């Protein structure tokens, strides 16, 4: 039989039984819609984690001291004193792959301005620090290398502090007190918003690292060193080179372990997305189960349909339909049903995802691959579950089929 005739026969059989066809595809529709929506939600949260981390800079490499062990007790990495400004200088002078490098110190404390006060986080680095960490100056200016050398009491503040401490007042030139030390506000940072983990990325104050080391924390070691590679592709090489340089700077022997840890953004992304990827697989499999149940629905109805249309099958055989024609017709009907269900399901899935996205404010990402995947899957289900009833129909004896009541 010609394909076009087959299509015609199957299609008219489906149209002839509109209500039944609709009920048959309902399971597939819900299954596909569920798969699309679940994957959209899962992919969306995955993607937003990735974006958050990337917004900190994809070329970013973080060096922290290893957690030192005293006796049998592993200490916090901040208690280690192995990273120093000398390391930063050593890297600056010897690395060929580093784009920019800065010491990093952080901590928390209370800002006091007049009668206002505000608990916040401070970060300190050199003049390249905002560049490495993707901070931008919104107004005022960045501190200079001269101010770093002099450990000047200057700072830049994030928008959350501007709003809560200064209100409508222009903060530039004002003096705030932090840990009893007066800091002159020389600039503000552009807004970055909350990240996926719910942290406010604008609630911070940025100062020269020398100021913190000498005037606030009175220490000579660094909490971390941050640096950026020249490009995303050279991150691996850069971190290898940095490891070598730091080992020689720290005069570590061949059999000694690194006394520092290097973390790239990619590692950070993978450690954070592992949870959401697990969720994605979980959601996806629940949705896939509903798709399989939908497929079983198709099998049931096709099976009933074969029994119900026994006479029709007998007639088709009597007027020259071969077993394989009958098989193809019923298989094709099942496939068409599941493809129709798939199309409607995709539309409903996209709609449902967008509704969820706009009502609950969840990040949604509908990928072509998820649409393609669920579509192929439901076509496969149509063939798989349609085969048995179709086989049964094709094996009917035409004489008995024609006599069937």
């Amino acid at each position, binding site marked *: 039989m010609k394909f076009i005739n087959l299509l015609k026969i199957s299609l008219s059989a489906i149209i*002839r039984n509109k209500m039944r066809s609709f009920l048959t595809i309902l399971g597939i529709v819900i299954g596909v819609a569920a798969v699309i929506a679940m994957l959209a939600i899962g992919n969306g949260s995955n993607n937003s984690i990735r974006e958050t981390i990337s917004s900190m800079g994809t070329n970013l490499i973080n060096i922290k001291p290893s957690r030192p062990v005293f006796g049998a007790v592993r200490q916090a990495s901040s208690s280690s004193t192995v990273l120093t400004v000398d390391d930063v200088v050593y890297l600056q002078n010897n690395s060929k792959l580093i784009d920019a490098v800065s010491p990093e110190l952080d901590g928390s404390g209370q800002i006091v301005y007049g009668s206002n006060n505000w608990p916040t986080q401070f970060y300190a680095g050199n003049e390249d620090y905002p560049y490495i960490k993707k901070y931008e100056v919104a107004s005022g200016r960045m501190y200079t290398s001269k101010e770093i050398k002099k450990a000047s009491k200057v700072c830049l503040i994030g928008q959350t502090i501007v709003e809560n401490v200064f209100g409508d007042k222009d903060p530039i030139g004002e003096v705030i007190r932090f840990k009893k030390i007066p800091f002159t506000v020389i600039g503000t940072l552009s807004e970055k918003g909350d990240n996926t983990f719910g942290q406010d990325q604008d609630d911070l104050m940025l100062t020269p690292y020398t100021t913190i080391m000498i005037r606030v924390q009175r220490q000579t070691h660094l909490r971390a060193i941050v640096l950026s590679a020249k490009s995303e592709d050279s991150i691996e090489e850069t971190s290898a080179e940095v490891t070598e340089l730091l080992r020689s700077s720290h005069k570590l022997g061949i059999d000694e372990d690194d006394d520092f840890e290097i973390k790239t953004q990619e590692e950070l992304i993978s450690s954070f997305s592992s949870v959401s990827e697990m969720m994605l697989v979980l959601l996806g499999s629940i949705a896939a189960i509903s798709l399989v149940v939908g497929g079983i629905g198709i099998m049931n109805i096709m099976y009933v349909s074969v029994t119900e249309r026994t006479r029709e099958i007998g007639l088709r055989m009597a*007027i020259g339909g071969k077993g394989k024609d009958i098989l193809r017709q019923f298989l094709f009907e099942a496939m068409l049903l599941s493809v129709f269900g798939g199309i409607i399901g995709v539309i409903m899935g996209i709609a449902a995802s967008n509704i969820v996205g706009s009502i609950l404010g969840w990040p949604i990402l509908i990928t072509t691959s998820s649409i393609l995947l669920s579509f192929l899957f439901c076509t496969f289900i149509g063939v798989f579950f349609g085969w048995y009833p179709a086989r049964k129909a094709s094996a009917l004896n035409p004489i008995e089929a024609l006599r069937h009541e």
Partner: protein
Amino acid sequence: MENKEIISIKELHKHYRVGDETIKALNGIDLTVNKGEFLAIMGTSGSGKSTLLNILGCLDLPTKGDYLLDGINVKSLNRNQLATIRNKKLGFVFQSYNLLPRTTAIENVELPLLYNPSVSNAVRKEKAEQALIAVGLKDRMKHLSNQMSGGQQQRVAIARSMVNDPVVIFADEATGNLDTRTSFEIMALFQELNDKGMTICFVTHESDIAAFTKRNVVFRDGRIIKDTQTKNIVIARESILGLKNEDYILN
């Protein structure tokens, strides 16, 4: 041309096994049907006429003996080859019409040609239209099968049986579900087709229906007990006129 053998059966046997018992449904049949014949196969139920029709219609194979249809020995054919023979050489009309429900008359008539890949869409449409015109349903081509009367449905079925230009049409109690007037009209249609040269085998147990045919073959217990040419063939058109008009509503 006139004496061309369409059906030739020699020493045909058909046995069924039911449990341990062997039922001899057909017990040595010899039958020859020439082109242009209008044959009534008669007999009570269980006489073997349905079994013979199934074999003649290539739906079943004989246990023993030969059956030549239009010169082809059917015995050696497999399931698919039998389907092709049915598609190209045979037409069927059933007691219960067996039209596809909720499908237009023309689509029902086109159906056999859909299973023949050598027929193009245009030819298929044209042949179906011609067949419907021939059975007097020119105005009802787009009507759905379930919106038609019994007589009209059987006309559609007859159009379907002749759309593939078969060598013979088999009708199985084709008037069994119809009232007298409509039965006569259907028989008139068959007579008309026969006059145009169509070979028809008509299975029935009603002798007044058999009276419209040219030759009566009577079965009993799997054997032919009588094979006669009809002496006074009744013309169906005239019989209709003889019916009391007030009892029936014209379709």
